[in-house]
């Protein structure tokens, strides 16, 4: 009998080990996905409200963190006369032409173009404020969406309403009898004639505004719950040694909840971000050496999904010289800023998870073959 027990025990241990290290646990998140993928129906109005939010972002000039004045004291401006290298003697041959083009002096100009930094000051009022708006209005954009939609919708009906002059006469009396709410019939006229979409959106959006975005995953919260359990020590004692061991081990995992807020991003959400950045990662103008250089770029994100351009930095590089890494990094930076100008599509409720992002740009597949 004992032999059987040992065999059984060993087999179970092996199974548990396989489950733990074989990746079955880590893939766990994959399982809940299908459940979470429940289709949440979004009304046209909601969609409109969501998309209406985007225009806000672009309106603001992309955060231009005024580059710190790099001005190295312009030492000797153009003062120094170009070094003269006597033009090569003109060829004896007939082709006098410009056989001896002389390009002589090559002087570095006063480095920082006053244009960049100094200028930053003048335009700063506009740009900086707009930059701040971008930062501070991560949440507002959604709320603003409604008001903006509404005002636009309002003016629309009147235009169409003009068609029926008689109706206008009736409109005038409305304010007088504001309380009576006979307005309904009038509204009915407007929508009927005007673009129906605008009117309906203006009215309905108010509701959807509160539901910022479709909730993608309700299930994940399970993890924190587990963490909470260990907090209840009373249970374990009564249970068997195995249970207590499990509980203790789980308790060890508990500290995590203090970390980033919200559930981790799903694979789909990560993929969406990756695809978005890829679309702007143009390696066409990179040298072959830079194409062999992998760079890791860190970026802090604003709550509205736009990257904080000033926070973009190279964390590490591999495979090329410093110069090549610099080119690779600049290309990566352009990609992040360009495609993030309108805000990446990231779930706001998980902001804590993507507040800081490390992107590894590996051009291995893009190399010249």
């Amino acid at each position, binding site marked *: 009998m004992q032999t059987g027990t040992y065999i059984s025990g060993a087999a179970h241990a092996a199974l548990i080990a396989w489950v733990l290290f074989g990746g079955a646990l880590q893939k766990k998140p994959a399982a809940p996905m299908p459940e979470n993928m429940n289709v949440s129906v979004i009304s046209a109005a909601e969609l409109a409200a969501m998309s209406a939010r985007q225009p806000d972002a672009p309106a603001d000039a992309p955060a231009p963190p005024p580059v710190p004045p790099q001005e190295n004291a312009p030492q000797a401006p153009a003062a120094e006369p170009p070094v003269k290298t006597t033009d090569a003697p003109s060829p004896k041959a007939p082709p006098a032409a410009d056989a001896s083009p002389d390009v002589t002096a090559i002087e570095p100009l006063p480095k920082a173009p006053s244009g960049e930094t100094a200028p930053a000051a003048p335009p700063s009022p506009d740009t900086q404020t707009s930059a701040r708006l971008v930062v501070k209005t991560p949440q507002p954009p959604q709320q603003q969406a409604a008001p903006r939609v509404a005002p636009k919708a309002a003016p629309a009906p009147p235009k169409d309403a003009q068609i029926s002059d008689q109706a206008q006469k009736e409109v005038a009396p409305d304010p007088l009898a504001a309380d009576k709410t006979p307005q309904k019939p009038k509204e009915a006229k407007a929508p009927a004639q005007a673009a129906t979409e605008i009117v309906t959106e203006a009215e309905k959006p108010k509701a959807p505004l509160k539901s910022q975005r479709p909730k993608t995953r309700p299930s994940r919260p399970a993890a924190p719950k587990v963490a909470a359990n260990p907090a209840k020590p009373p249970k374990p004692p009564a249970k068997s040694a195995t249970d207590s061991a499990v509980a203790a081990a789980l308790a060890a995992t508990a500290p995590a909840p203090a970390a980033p807020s919200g559930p981790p991003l799903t694979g789909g959400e990560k993929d969406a971000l990756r695809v978005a950045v890829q679309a702007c990662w143009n390696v066409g103008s990179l040298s072959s050496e830079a194409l062999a250089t992998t760079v890791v770029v860190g970026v802090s994100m604003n709550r509205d999904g736009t990257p904080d351009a000033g926070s973009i930095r190279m964390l590490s590089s591999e495979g090329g010289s410093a110069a090549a890494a610099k080119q690779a990094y600049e290309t990566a930076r352009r990609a992040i800023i360009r495609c993030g100008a309108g805000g990446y599509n990231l779930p706001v409720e998980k902001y804590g998870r993507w507040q800081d992002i490390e992107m590894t740009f590996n*051009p291995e597949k893009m190399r010249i073959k």
Partner: protein
Amino acid sequence: MRNLASLVLLLLAFAAPLSAQERSGPLRITITEGVIEPLPFAAPAFIAENPAAGEFARDIAQVIADDLAGTGLFRQIPAEAFISRITSFDAPVQYADWKAINAQALITGAVSAGTDGRMTVKFRVFDVFAQAQLGDGLQFGGSTGSWRRMAHKVADAVYSRITGEGAYFDSRVVFVAESGPKDARKKRLAIMDYDGANVQYLTDDRSIVLAPRFSPTGDRVLYTSYESGFPRIYEMNVASVTRRALDEQPGTMTFAPRFGPDGQAVVFSLSSGGNTDLYKLNLASGARQRLTSAPSIETAPSFSPDGSQIVFESDRSGNQQLYIMPSGGGEAQRISFGKGRYSTPVWSPRGDLIAFTKQYQGRFHIGVMRVDGSEERLLTSSFLDEGPTWSPNGRVIMFSRESQGAQGSSTLYSVDITGRNLKRVPTPGGASDPSWSPLQK
């Protein structure tokens, strides 16, 4: 059971840190797929700082734009699309305006010309999306007659800053200018800017000339001429257009010369008694060294950039193939094993590739392969492509292409080593056998 319990405990304890780690720290993603497309840039007309500079300001900006766009790596945004104007060289850049038209790089500059025939050109490059200047601004001085060179120099600097590799715009090409029908073609040496401008003729058309080759410093040219009735090598000083014959040996023919990286050693083919072998000549001392001694034909030698090896073609295996040997002579190693015939190998200035002409199934190709013969790839295909030469940065190959038929003519083409951006190099008439100079100082 206790053992089992402790085992479970142990395993969970291991798993715990893993999951904890997974939950903390920044979000990490890896990007491996990008896009390959020309980088859009804006090059507004340069500012003319005085009336005399007016005519140059626009032209210089245009040459710069043409240089960059001509690489296939950049795309010029037409001036009509500009939102803001550059009114002063030091005026602040309105990044938002340039960003709006998707200009990823912005080049601004100014030109001033003195009454003494001299002028200065200064410029700056901006990374629009990063809202920062790329590198320092630079200023070039020179005579107004060499404004194109100054424009090329600006373009070189811009190219290097954005791509991270050396440039090639301020360089020249020596080639054989051809005129007349195929059966009575006249040939003479000519030199021009890399983009086809400023063509000058170095010889007249009384005798046939072949295969000119630049020295590493770009001040001299080696070529083969039939001036004496037999092919013979000459060295010409480009500036003074003076020449001298090299290594005159009665009863022999010399051809296919090429400079070594030090500018003093010259390798060439010498044909004597029906056999052709490779020789090396020291220009300073006049000492000559025989490098090969085989009954087969060895020709088209080319030094590696460090001067330690020579690649050449030989038919010792029955048909033309490529071989590499030490520059002092010695055992040669065959590197080409593909189908077809390989000829005119040229070592890349970077040292990593060898360009060649390949004839296979009735068509000619320009191709490149690694120094060990691996990763061969053909970049072109036509009725007759031959004579590759490398740009100073090893990124572009120029070659001559001849069209079919009695009226067929030869023209110059260039192609990126990726095989993209194949385009014709403008020349006044027919042209063949190009040789690209190093970047001018």
